C-alpha cells in the first residue's frame, strides 16, 4: 500500500514492456506478417506474449524482493488539465503482478494453442488470409489487458477496460460474415455488437462512478482516492461502488448484463478461452479487488455485490444444465464462476476471489481449449466422412438424421443442397469420443474435476475458500453458491457423459481424430496447473501463499483454515451431482435423436433452462422492442414529422421564405431597389423617346432650334 522510492526497484524499469512487447508483436505481424508463414506469424505473436510473461515474472520477483511493496514506474505525462493530473504510470504490486502473470501466462499458452487451432479453423472456413489478423488481435488484446491491470489510476484502467472491450468485439466478430456453422449470415457480427452494446451499458456505470469519484476525491489515482476514503461521505462511496458494480456486471458478465457472454462464443475457441473465460471477464473482479478500500468501507454495497454474484452463479449454473452446445455450457459455467468470484470479493474475501480467478483461469482455459480440440476433432471427422461419401454416395442416406430437437438458436437450420449442416459444437452429435480423442478426454476430465471442485484439484481449494468465507459472512450467499456448486458438478458431469461416453451419435464423432501436439501440449501445461494450482493458497497454516502475497495490496485478510463441514458439504454435493449425472446420462447413454432425459421429469423447468430462462426474449420484449419503438417514434414523429416537417420546414423555412418572399423580395427588392433601377431605365427610355423626335433629320428644323435658342438667350440677355 505504500509507495516507496527508496527500496531497490529491481526490474521495475521493464514495466512498460508489458504493453510494448505485445504491441511490437502486433506491429511486426502487421508489417512483415504477409511474408511469413503461418508458423512464423504464430511464433512472433507467441514470443511477444511470452516476453510480456517474462517481464511479469521479473516484476513479480522484484515485488517480492521489495517485500510486497507497491512500486510505480512513470512512463509519460498523460493528462494535465486544471486539477486533474494523470500520468501513464505502471503500478506494480502484488495484485497487479498476479493479474499480469495470469494474463500473460495463460495468454501465451493460448497463443501457442491458437497456432494449431487457427491453422485448421481458417481452412475449414476457407479464408487462410485471416490467420494473421487473428494473432494481431490477440496481441492487441494482451497489450490492452496489460494496460488495464498495470494502471495506476482509474482512468488508465478505463483505457485498458475499453481496449479489451474492443478486442473482444473484434474477436467475437472474427468470422463476421458467417454464423457459428460457417453459413453466410450476420449472426457472428450480431453477437459482437451485442457484446459491445452490453459492455457500453456497463461502461456507462463505470464512467459515472469515475465522475462522482473525481467530484468527491478530486483524483483518479488509486492511492490518492483510497487515502481519502474516510473523509468522503458514506452515500457518495455507495454511489461510486454501485455504479462501478454496473461496470463490473457488464465486463464480468453478471446479472443483468451477462447476456452477451454466451453469444460471445461465436468467436474462435482460443478467444473464448482467453478473453471470455480466463482474463478479460475477470477484469470486473480485479476492479473490485483493486477498489477494496472503497468497497470495504460500505457494507451495504458489499452485500449487493455479493448477492449479485451469488444469484448470477446459481442462475447461470441452471441454464448451463439445459444447453446442448459444448461451448455454451462452458460459457454459462464461466458466468456462474464469475458469480462466485464477484460474490467473494463482494464479501470482502478478496484473496478468495483472486484465488478463484487464478485457478478458474487455468481450468476454464483448459476446458475451453479442450472443447476447441473436441470441435476440431469432430470437424476432422466430418471432413473425413464427407470425403468418404464422395465415393460412397449411397451410404450417406443412413446418416441423414439430426433434424429435430435443434437448439433454439439453431432453429433456422437449413440444408445446403442435399447435405445437412453439421454442427461440430453440438453435444448431441458427439458421444464416445473417449476412444477417438483420448488425450483430449483426459485433459477435459482434469478440467471438469477442477471446475466441479473435487479434491485435490485447484478448483476445490479456491471454491471452498469462497464457500467458507460465505458461510462466515452471509448465509444466503453461502447457500446460493453451494447450490450453484451442485449444479456446476451436474452440468459438467452431463457434459462428460454426453461428449466422451456412450456411443457416437454422429458418424463425424465416430471418425473424430485427436489433435496435434501444438494443441495438446499447451493443454497439458494448463492441466498441470489445474491440478496443482490449489497449492497457491492451501488452507493450512503456513501455506497461505497467495493471501500473504496479496495482503500487501488488499490489506490484512483473515487466513482461514480448512472447515471440514463446508468442504464436506460441497464435495459431497459435487459427488452426488456427478452421481446423478451418471444416473441420467451415463448409465443409459443418449441415443441419436433421443430428447434430453431430463426433459420429461423436469417439464417446463427444463424448457426454461434450455431456453436460457427466456432472458433474451424478455430483454427483447421489455427493453429492445420498446427501445426500437421509441427510436422509431423519435425518428418518425419527433425528428421527421415534428422537427423536420413542422419545425424546420414550416416554421424556420416557412418564416424564412415568407420574410424573403414578401418582405425582402416583394417590398425591399421588387418595389424598392428594382423599382428604382427599372424606373431609372423607363424614365431614360421615355425621355429619349421624347427627345429623339427633336432629332428629325431636317437640317432646317435644327436651324430653327438654333434660332429659337439664340432668340431665347439674346432675349434673356436683353430683358434681364
Amino acid at each position: 500500500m505504500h509507495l516507496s522510492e527508496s527500496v531497490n526497484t529491481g526490474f521495475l524499469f521493464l514495466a512498460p514492456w508489458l504493453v510494448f512487447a505485445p504491441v511490437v508483436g502486433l506491429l511486426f505481424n502487421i508489417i512483415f506478417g504477409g511474408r511469413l508463414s503461418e508458423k512464423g506469424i504464430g511464433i512472433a505473436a507467441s514470443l511477444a506474449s511470452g516476453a510480456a510473461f517474462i517481464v511479469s515474472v521479473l516484476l513479480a520477483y522484484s515485488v517480492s524482493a521489495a517485500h510486497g511493496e507497491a512500486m510505480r514506474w512513470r512512463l509519460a505525462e498523460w493528462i494535465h488539465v486544471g486539477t486533474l493530473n494523470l500520468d501513464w504510470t505502471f503500478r506494480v504490486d502484488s495484485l497487479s503482478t498476479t493479474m499480469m502473470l495470469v494474463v500473460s501466462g495463460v495468454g501465451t499458452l493460448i497463443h501457442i494453442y491458437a497456432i494449431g487451432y487457427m491453422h485448421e479453423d481458417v481452412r475449414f472456413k476457407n479464408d487462410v488470409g485471416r490467420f494473421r489478423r487473428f494473432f494481431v488481435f490477440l496481441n492487441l488484446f494482451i497489450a490492452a489487458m496489460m494496460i488495464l491491470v498495470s494502471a495506476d489510476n482509474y482512468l488508465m484502467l478505463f483505457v485498458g477496460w475499453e481496449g479489451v472491450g474492443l478486442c473482444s468485439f473484434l474477436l467475437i466478430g472474427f468470422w463476421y460474415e458467417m454464423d457459428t456453422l460457417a453459413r453466410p449470415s450476420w449472426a457472428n457480427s450480431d453477437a459482437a455488437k451485442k457484446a459491445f452494446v452490453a459492455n457500453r451499458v456497463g461502461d456507462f456505470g463505470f464512467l459515472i462512478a469515475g465522475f462522482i469519484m473525481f467530484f468527491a476525491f478530486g483524483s483518479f489515482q488509486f492511492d490518492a482516492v483510497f487515502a481519502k476514503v474516510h473523509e468522503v461521505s458514506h452515500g457518495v462511496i455507495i454511489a461510486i461502488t454501485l455504479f462501478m458494480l454496473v461496470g463490473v456486471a457488464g465486463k464480468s458478465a453478471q446479472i443483468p448484463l451477462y447476456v452477451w457472454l454466451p453469444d460471445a462464443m461465436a468467436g474462435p475457441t482460443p478467444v473464448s478461452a482467453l478473453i471470455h473465460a480466463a482474463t478479460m471477464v475477470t477484469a470486473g473482479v480485479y476492479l473490485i479487488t483493486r477498489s477494496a478500500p472503497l468497497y470495504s468501507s460500505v457494507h451495504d454495497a458489499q452485500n449487493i455485490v455479493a448477492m449479485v454474484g451469488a444469484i448470477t452463479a446459481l442462475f447461470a449454473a441452471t441454464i448451463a444444465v439445459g444447453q446442448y452446445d459444448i461451448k455454451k455450457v462452458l460459457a454459462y459455467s464461466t458466468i456462474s464462476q464469475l458469480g462466485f468470484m464477484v460474490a467473494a470479493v463482494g464479501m470482502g474475501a478478496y484473496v478468495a476471489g483472486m484465488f478463484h480467478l487464478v485457478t478458474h483461469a487455468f481450468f476454464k482455459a483448459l476446458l475451453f481449449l479442450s472443447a476447441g480440440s473436441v470441435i476440431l476433432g469432430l470437424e476432422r471427422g466430418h471432413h473425413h466422412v464427407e470425403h468418404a461419401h464422395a465415393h460412397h454416395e449411397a451410404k450417406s442416406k443412413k446418416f441423414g438424421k439430426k433434424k429435430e430437437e435443434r437448439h433454439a438458436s439453431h432453429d433456422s437450420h437449413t440444408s445446403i443442397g442435399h447435405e445437412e449442416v453439421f454442427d461440430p459444437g453440438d453435444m448431441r452429435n458427439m458421444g464416445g469420443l473417449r476412444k477417438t480423442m483420448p488425450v483430449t478426454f483426459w485433459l477435459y476430465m482434469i478440467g471438469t474435476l477442477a471446475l466441479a471442485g473435487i479434491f485435490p484439484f485447484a478448483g476445490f481449494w479456491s471454491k471452498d475458500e469462497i464457500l467458507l468465507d460465505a458461510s462466515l459472512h452471509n448465509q444466503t450467499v453461502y447457500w446460493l453458491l453451494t447450490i450453484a456448486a451442485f449444479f456446476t458438478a451436474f452440468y459438467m458431469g452431463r457434459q462428460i457423459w454426453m461428449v466422451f461416453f456412450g456411443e457416437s451419435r454422429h458418424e463425424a464423432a465416430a471418425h473424430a481424430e485427436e489433435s496435434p501436439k501444438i494443441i495438446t501440449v499447451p493443454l497439458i501445461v494448463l492441466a498441470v496447473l489445474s491440478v496443482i494450482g490449489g497449492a497457491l493458497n492451501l488452507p493450512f497454516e503456513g501455506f497461505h501463499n497467495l493471501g500473504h502475497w496479496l495482503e500487501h495490496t488488499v490489506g490484512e485478510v483473515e487466513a482461514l483454515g480448512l472447515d471440514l463441514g463446508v468442504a464436506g458439504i460441497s464435495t459431497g454435493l459435487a459427488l452426488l451431482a456427478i452421481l446423478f449425472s451418471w444416473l441420467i446420462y451415463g448409465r443409459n447413454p443418449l441415443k441419436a435423436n433421443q430428447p434430453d432425459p431430463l426433459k420429461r421429469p423436469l417439464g417446463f423447468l427444463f424448457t426454461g433452462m434450455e431456453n436460457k430462462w427466456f432472458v433474451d426474449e424478455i430483454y427483447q420484449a421489455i427493453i429492445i422492442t420498446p427501445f426500437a419503438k421509441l427510436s422509431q417514434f423519435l425518428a418518425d414523429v419527433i425528428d421527421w414529422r415534428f422537427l423536420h416537417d413542422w419545425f424546420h420546414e414550416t416554421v424556420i423555412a416557412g418564416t424564412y421564405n415568407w420574410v424573403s418572399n414578401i418582405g425582402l423580395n416583394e417590398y425591399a427588392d421588387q418595389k424598392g431597389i428594382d423599382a428604382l433601377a427599372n424606373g431609372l431605365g423607363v424614365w431614360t427610355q421615355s425621355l429619349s423617346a421624347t427627345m429623339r423626335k427633336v432629332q428629325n433629320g431636317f437640317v432646317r428644323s435644327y436651324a430653327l432650334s438654333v434660332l429659337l435658342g439664340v432668340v431665347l438667350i439674346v432675349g434673356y440677355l436683353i430683358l434681364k
Partner: protein
Amino acid sequence: MIPINYYIILSAILFTIGVTGVLVRRNALIIFMSIELMLNAANLAIVAFSSVLQSFSGQIFVFFVIAVAAAEVAVGLALIVEIFKSKRSIDVDQMSGLKG
C-alpha cells in the same frame, strides 16, 4: 452722314432675310447663300459700329470673318459637291441620315 440706325436696320433686314432663307429653302446652295447673307449682315453691322466708334478693330474683325467665310464656303461647297455625287440631289430635307 448716314445715321447708324439705318445701317443697323439694313443689317437686321439682311440677317432676317438670311435666317428666313436658311429656314425655308431646301436647296443647299441657297442655304449657303443665306448663311453668307447673315454673315455679311453681321459684317455690315460691325463695320458700321467700327466707323461710328472710330475703331479699326471692328474692321479687322470683319476681315477675319470674310476670310473664314471664304474657307467655309470652300469646305461647304466641296461637301455639297460630294453629297450631290452620291445622292444626285442637294435637297437638304433628303439628307436625313441622322434622324433619331
